[in-house]
């Protein structure tokens, strides 16, 4: 079991980086949300979401396959869409 400790420590470190990166990404979404609300643009832009997913798949080198990466990023996009919706400050 001792062999696991090093890997688990590494996972914790990576998770910390992921949290920081996800929040950095979320800040961009909030900024975009504010711009969309100011200009009256729709929050949900499916074409752009498809672009994001295509880009993620393009840069993906595994071991997660493209379908797995797509599923993970669908959730990230779901949350980004929610932040953009809330970015008008109304709380709704």
């Amino acid at each position: 079991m001792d062999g696991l400790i090093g890997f688990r420590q590494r996972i914790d470190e990576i998770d910390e980086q992921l949290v920081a990166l996800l929040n950095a990404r979320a800040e961009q979404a909030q900024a975009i949300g504010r711009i969309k609300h100011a200009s009256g643009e729709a929050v949900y832009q499916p074409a752009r979401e498809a672009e994001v997913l295509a880009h993620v798949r393009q840069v993906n080198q595994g071991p997660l396959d493209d379908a797995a990466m797509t599923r993970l990023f669908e959730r990230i996009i779901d949350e980004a869409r929610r932040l953009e919706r809330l970015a008008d400050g109304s709380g709704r």
Partner: protein
Amino acid sequence: MVVIMKERASEPQIQAVIAQLMDMGYDVHRSTGANRIVLGAVGGGHGDPQIVEVQDGVQEVHRISVPYKLASRTFRPENTVIAIDDVRIGGDEVIVMAGPCSAESEEQVEASAAAVKRAGAKVLRGGAFKPRSSPYSFQGLGEPGLRMLRAAADRHGLKLITEVMEISQIELVAKYAHVLQVGARNMQNYSLLRELGKARAPVMIKRGISATIEEWLMSAEYVLAGGNTQVMLCERGIRTFETYTRNTFDISAIPVVQQLSHLPVIADPSHGTGRRDKVAPMARAAVAAGADGLIIEVHCDPDHAKSDGAQSMFPAQFERLMAELRIIAPAIGRSLCVEPVARRGWNR
């Protein structure tokens, strides 16, 4: 709600559904499976799931939250107990309501009330306004019937439950009755239910003859939404393809409703079966299934009853049933008629 898209749903179809769910105020979780896309609508949105269901590319829609709020256990986790003086409906004690289908005469009401009291019933049942399937059948005695029922109930220390058929009768019936009953045929009479929401008397809503449990709970919701929190439900059998019994008594509705709702559930094995000889077994089963009370037709002379004679028990049959129920109730942690009745002192 959860929206399952068809296997061959196109990307524009999926996008249209996402946009619609967002319009309804939901946040959408998109999950791509091996063959199909599932959209989870979460958060504080609201809208008719059926509108989503008819969109192109949608296979099915599952609602997660229930449409009844005040009647649901989520709203009130603990059981509602309806107290009428010392009679507590929805508590540990199984409350038995019994009496004739209709009030027919002073003598008949008195003899029936005395019989059910002797056997251990706490509430007298009996109709003065009868919703009959035929306009040519006995329609009830009206206010004189109410007066007879209340006088007999008072003489024997019983509470009174009786049916109110229409809005114009509420005030009159509430003058005499402790509990107002909404009959199966009126379960979806929403204007009546709305008025009963303003009443301050307990209301018992019988399940409609073809009503789903959800529709039944929505009827309770009408009364609760009006501000009347004293609502109990009564399973009385539903219509199925079986014709041997008058209705099919849905015993499973008892635990189902008790899980979904905090409201007391009463069982009516008389209407549930329509046959005197089937009332006792179904009454025993209902108590074993956890019913908070029973409502049973007992007539001093069933063979000459003006209504529901075939399903009315003889007083001696009812007494025997009550003795059996006193053995069944403790097996599931309930009690039945804890007050010692003169001839049943062994109960304590």
